[in-house]
């Protein structure tokens, strides 16, 4: 089974990747460090997963070569589970990409990464409620020190595709 | 306004002027071409440490002087922090250069330096940045007063 790590540039996908797989890919505190994809492997309860660290992309309409790699990756892996990594302090932008991926019918898990930075900026997110509305697992993480990663792993099996209608309904329908 | 901060702006005002003078002296010495010593102070004449480094000390002085305009306000205060960081960069590089010079034995000697040679490297004279270093550390006290990096002191 394949797991894709997707999200905006510099939200810590590669850090999550390193924590998940124990592999070592280069991470930096600036966007665009990963320009090609990296594969790694992890074992959860005897099941093998291939984890792919995808270059950061703002949306599924690619603008540069690294983003093209990302979108192509997603299109090639039709039956993959996507872990959408977002910067909690910029959650709205992150949700945009998350919704795009959900709409394409992928089972998605949302990792609210950089949770600590959001708290520093006094942004409070009700993760449970978000989970309820989106109908997908939502896990706050601080990848840099490993917090929430275990939770993230245990929720991979719970991810299922969600109809956009369901989400619309929960927030009061389409206008 | 808090009295502590008034004291702070006087202190960093003086330090700023001193740093500015050091920076200018550095540049003048480099332009002159011969290194200058006075007691335990030595101003290097090479274009890297003296010229480039001197320019940065001059900038540090300017940062300090900018900051005293409104020392208690966070954006001005952080200019003083930056001034100190610049001094730390220059002094840190000078000290590291001393350390790396003090350990090996040199072309004629053995693998490691003799004890006298080792200690001798650290004897004065020093460059101006080294003299500024202890005084620049006062900023840490002020950072602490503000309650680390997260406090807000706007009144």
């Amino acid at each position: 089974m394949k797991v894709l790590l997707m999200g905006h540039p510099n939200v810590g996908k590669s850090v999550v990747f390193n924590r998940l797989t124990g592999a070592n890919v280069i991470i930096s505190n600036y966007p665009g460090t990963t320009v090609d994809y990296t594969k790694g492997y992890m074992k959860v309860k005897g099941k093998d997963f291939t984890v792919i660290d995808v270059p950061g992309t703002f949306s599924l309409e690619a603008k540069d070569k690294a983003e093209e790699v990302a979108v192509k990756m997603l299109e090639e892996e039709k039956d993959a589970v996507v872990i959408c990594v977002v910067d909690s302090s910029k959650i709205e932008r992150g949700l945009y990409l998350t919704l795009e991926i959900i709409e394409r019918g992928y089972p998605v898990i949302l990792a609210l990464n950089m949770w600590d930075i959001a708290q520093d900026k006094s942004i409070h997110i009700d993760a449970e409620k978000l989970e309820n509305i989106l109908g997908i697992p939502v896990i706050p993480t601080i990848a840099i020190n490993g917090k929430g990663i275990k939770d993230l792993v245990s929720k991979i099996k719970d991810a299922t595709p969600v109809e956009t209608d369901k989400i619309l309904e929960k927030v009061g329908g389409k206008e | 306004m808090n009295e502590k901060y008034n004291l702070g702006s006087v202190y960093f005002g003086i330090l700023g002027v001193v740093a500015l003078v050091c920076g200018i002296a550095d540049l003048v010495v480099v332009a002159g071409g011969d290194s200058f010593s006075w007691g335990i102070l030595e101003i290097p004449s090479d274009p890297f440490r003296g010229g480039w480094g001197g320019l940065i000390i001059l900038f540090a002085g300017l940062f300090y002087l900018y900051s005293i305009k409104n020392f208690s306000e966070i954006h001005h205060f952080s200019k003083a922090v930056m001034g100190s960081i610049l001094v730390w960069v220059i002094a840190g590089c000078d000290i590291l250069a001393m350390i790396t010079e003090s350990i090996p034995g040199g072309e004629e000697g053995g693998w490691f330096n003799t004890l006298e040679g080792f200690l001798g490297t650290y004897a004065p004279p020093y460059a101006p940045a080294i003299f500024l270093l202890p005084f620049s550390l006062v900023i840490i006290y002020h950072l602490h007063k503000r309650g680390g990096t997260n406090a807000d002191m706007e009144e």
Partner: protein
Amino acid sequence: MKLTVDERWDLIEKISKETVIFGVYKHTVKDAIGELTVKPLTGIPIAFAVLYGFWSFFGSFAGFFTDGFFVKLFDEHWLPWLQDVFPGGLGNWFYAIMVDAGHMENGILVASDNCFESFGVLTSGFFLAIGVVLPAIIAFYLILTLLEDTGYMPRLAVLIDTVLHKIGLHGFAIVPTILSLGCNVPAVTASRILETKKQRFIMMTLLAIFIPCGAQLGIMEEVIPDTIGFVLLYLFTGYFILGFILHKVLPGKSPEILIDVPPYQMPMLRDVAMKLWMRVKGFFKIAIPFVLLGCIIVNILYLANIIDWLANVLSPVLSGWFGVPKETVGPLIAAFLRKDLAVAQLSAIEMTKYQMITSVVLVSIYFPCVATFMMLLKEGWKDLLGSIAVLALVVFLYGGLLHLIWILLGVA
């Protein structure tokens, strides 16, 4: 079901209204310092200080290991020991390749007394790779990693954005440029973060021609400590001139970018150590084989008199146009394989300070090393051909210009 862009944002607004509370955000000293590093008036002096720290650390660290210990180890112990115990001896071809080719003095072949001149695989090869290049590369990557992980790099990108727009790039081009000062190979890959074909072509061409790599910098610090500043200045000036011309000449777009500036962070020791280790390892996988292979090939070419022959054939170009001794043909051939090797070899040739500057500049700009060449090829052969055409022109004009400057100054 798919949503339109507006519908999607609308939905996000509703979701966030129910789940997110945005508190009042107060500025911290960290934020204020972040602002200072980005605004030009305060940011440029800070960038100057960062560069100073970078260079000073590089010099101290590399000097400590190379001058402090490795020169002594290799010149006073390793070389004499090998000259003693290695079978063959001066004049023997295998001995020449592996240990010491010697050099002619008044018609007599004499042994070398240092590892810059001996040029054997076991002597110069090891000395350059381990004694000079290893400390330089570690020092370089250590600082680079710290700058990256604290979050200074994107701020530098914002700061330099306006300047780089003039050469058809944008702020983020500083990342491949600085990476390239370590090694051109990962820098070529990093240039993918640029959006258009035009930008990538400009970036890769500039990297391949004008940016010396960390190994080369390390050797230059060792061989020409007094004039390295001038050489670098000349190269970086070329970077901007050529960039400006390419930007004007080439069709295509150079779009604006929005850089997301991440908050400053305390680097994590584990991550820094890991990244440093991976980069140094990655570098040496490429470097060591080519340094050793370079020594072998150059020695064979010397022994077979091919270099002498080439030197005579190319003499009009080298001494006539560029004003350098014809013997520099050897280093120029070595530069195909490794630039650091080539600079080291130059140091063994007798010439004036100014000829030395020209030769080092020529070695730097005239052809990317094999490893970089392969990376460029991977990014597309058409672009590579274009880059090489530009390069040939630049070598002749910009290299020749330096000769002209020396003539005008009366020092040629």
